[in-house]
């Protein structure tokens, strides 16, 4: 086993990102999609931290902290929208929610 390098971080990050993306594209439950988006955000975090570790600079870690903070804010808004949606339409199926098209 070779030493830990940026490549490992990036491979993990890419794997997580693709899992998240596939989840967003294929799942129909709003909550699951939402979690998948969080997964994609955290995949980005992993790659940022990987670079910070590789380059011995704190910038990447600070960036990751910002992303976490913004993700929290986004979660509040996003979950609020999901709540409002489920109250109005009584469903969490994203394919049912296509009023804008009609």
């Amino acid at each position, binding site marked *: 086993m070779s030493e830990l390098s940026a490549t490992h971080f990036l491979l993990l990050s890419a794997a997580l990102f693709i899992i998240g*993306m596939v989840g*967003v*594209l*294929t799942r*129909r439950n709003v909550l699951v*999609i939402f979690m998948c988006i969080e997964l994609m955000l955290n995949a980005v975090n992993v790659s940022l931290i990987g670079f910070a570790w590789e380059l011995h600079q704190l910038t990447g870690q600070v960036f990751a902290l910002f992303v976490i903070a913004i993700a929290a804010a986004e979660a509040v808004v996003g979950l609020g929208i999901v709540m409002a949606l489920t109250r109005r339409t009584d469903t969490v199926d*994203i*394919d049912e*929610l*296509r009023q*804008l*098209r*009609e």
Partner: protein
Amino acid sequence: MERTVDWLVIIPLAPLLAALVNFLVGRWWIRQQAHWLAVPAVGLSFLVSLVAAVEVLGQHHVLRQSLYTWIAAGDFHVPVELVIDELTAVMLLVVTGISFLVHVYSIGYMAHDPGYYRFFAWLPLFVFSMVMLVLANNFLVLFVFWEAVGLCSYLLIGFWFRRRSAADAAKKAFIVNRIGDFGFALGIMLIFTSLGTLEYHEVFQSIPELSTGTVTAIALLLFTGAIGKSAQLPLFVWLPDAMEGPTPVSALIHAATMVTAGIFMVARAHPILLAAPLAMGVVATIGGLTAFVAATIAATQFDIKRVVAYSTVSQLGYMAMALGVGAWIPAIFHLFTHAFFKALLFLGSGAVMHAMHDELDMRRMGGLKRWMPLTYWAFVIGAAANAGIVPLAGFWSKDEILVGAWVAGVPILTILGLVAAFFTALYMFRAVFLTFHGEPRFDPHEIHPHDPPKTMALPLLLLAVGAVLAGFVGVPPENGWLHHALEPVFEGAKHHEVPLALTLGIAIASTVVALAGLWIAHAAYVRATIDPAAMAARLGLLYRLAANGWYFDLVYQRAVVRPLDAFATWLWRNVDIAIIDGAVNGVARAVAATAQLWRRLQTGLVANYALVIALGTVLLVGIYLAFGSTLFR
């Protein structure tokens, strides 16, 4: 001598303010009280004009007030200045004085009209425009207010715009005037391009520098404007139709504020005409023909207001004739006296209409004398003054014009004028006898004619006094007070020594023809020794010619209106609908069709959108890696 003062601005400002206030808040606040603003404003304007006129006419000062510079572009300056010389002073008195009486009259006449406030907004605006027109010091300002007068006439003729005929008459007045104004504008442009200035004095001083051809062109173009505004042949057709407006408006247009503008403008521009003898000949000929043609038409009309309207056209013809033969002062003199008796005649016929429930046809009147003595006497005085019966106003001024034509060497115009004078007496007294004498031709049980209320009676009385006395400002002929007052303005004009025998001879001739007209009218409509219908039948074609206004309207309808109408319809069908609308609608249809195609992409499935975003990102990154970066090279 010239004096600069700062109070001249009151003359136009007072009516303008009244008009603005009535226009802006009249509908909500002032309504039936609108006259409390308009009447005193015009009254104030009259008083200030009177003060100015006393100084100008008495001491021969020229009063001047600079307001502001309207245009300052390089060498071209157009200052807005108010200048009162002798000619303007006389015009101001006529305009504001008659307008004031018409305003007072309108209080009674227009009472209970739903547009009362609107009426008392347009009426002072009309006065404002006309006052500015006569106060102007250069051709551009003159032109602006010339147009403003046209606008006001449009608004007031079409005052009862819900009535189709009134709206049409307003449009007709506006459009016919526009034809004349087009020539007028060209004339002003020609003055500017050839002299580089528009200020009266500078223009008149540099006239000798111009070639005769240019001056003649300028004079004719300016006169084209007067043909439209002062209702001369062949553009007089709008004036009789303008009767669709309320009667006070007719009085205002005919006596004070509109049709006199053309005569005034030509008199103002007399140095230009003096340098263009050919143009003078045209003016005189058109004037003489107008006087004659309109008088014959008036003798065949049955609508009381149309009789008076054609009589205005005829009297304006006299004035134009006077201008054309260089009798400038008699022209202004006639304008002055005409203002009184024509306003009187209109307000008188307005009183008749008021009493007869808006009946205009004289064939359904008759015998009104016994119910409306005041109106009767006022109307008779106006008619006699118009017909030129000694010693009323019209006699003095009309005679002077006829004498002027004779001494200028065109006796044919004098004779034409005398023939027109015969018809004048005929149609005026025909109107009097048909309306006021004989047996009533309406049902007296249904209509109870009565003299008008005080606000209407007072202007009638004052105007009647004016119609009797106004002529004496020009007595003795050629040497009266008015002649001396106006002399400085028309300094350059030739002065003819008129032999007494000629003056007397023409006076006697015109009196004889006037009495002949009166006698025939009396014979036909009172004593019934002549049957008017048989007379009309015997005249045949001639009668039909006059009764139909010499077919001017018909010719215009056939030769101008219909071809233009057809052309406009063709343009509408083939250009407007086919090309312009086609292009616009075609673009819209193309956009809609494309959108119909693309809307299939909008599935409404979030997953699809996300996929497209992801693929797009991959594509962009791929392009970058392939072409933009050096990573794989």
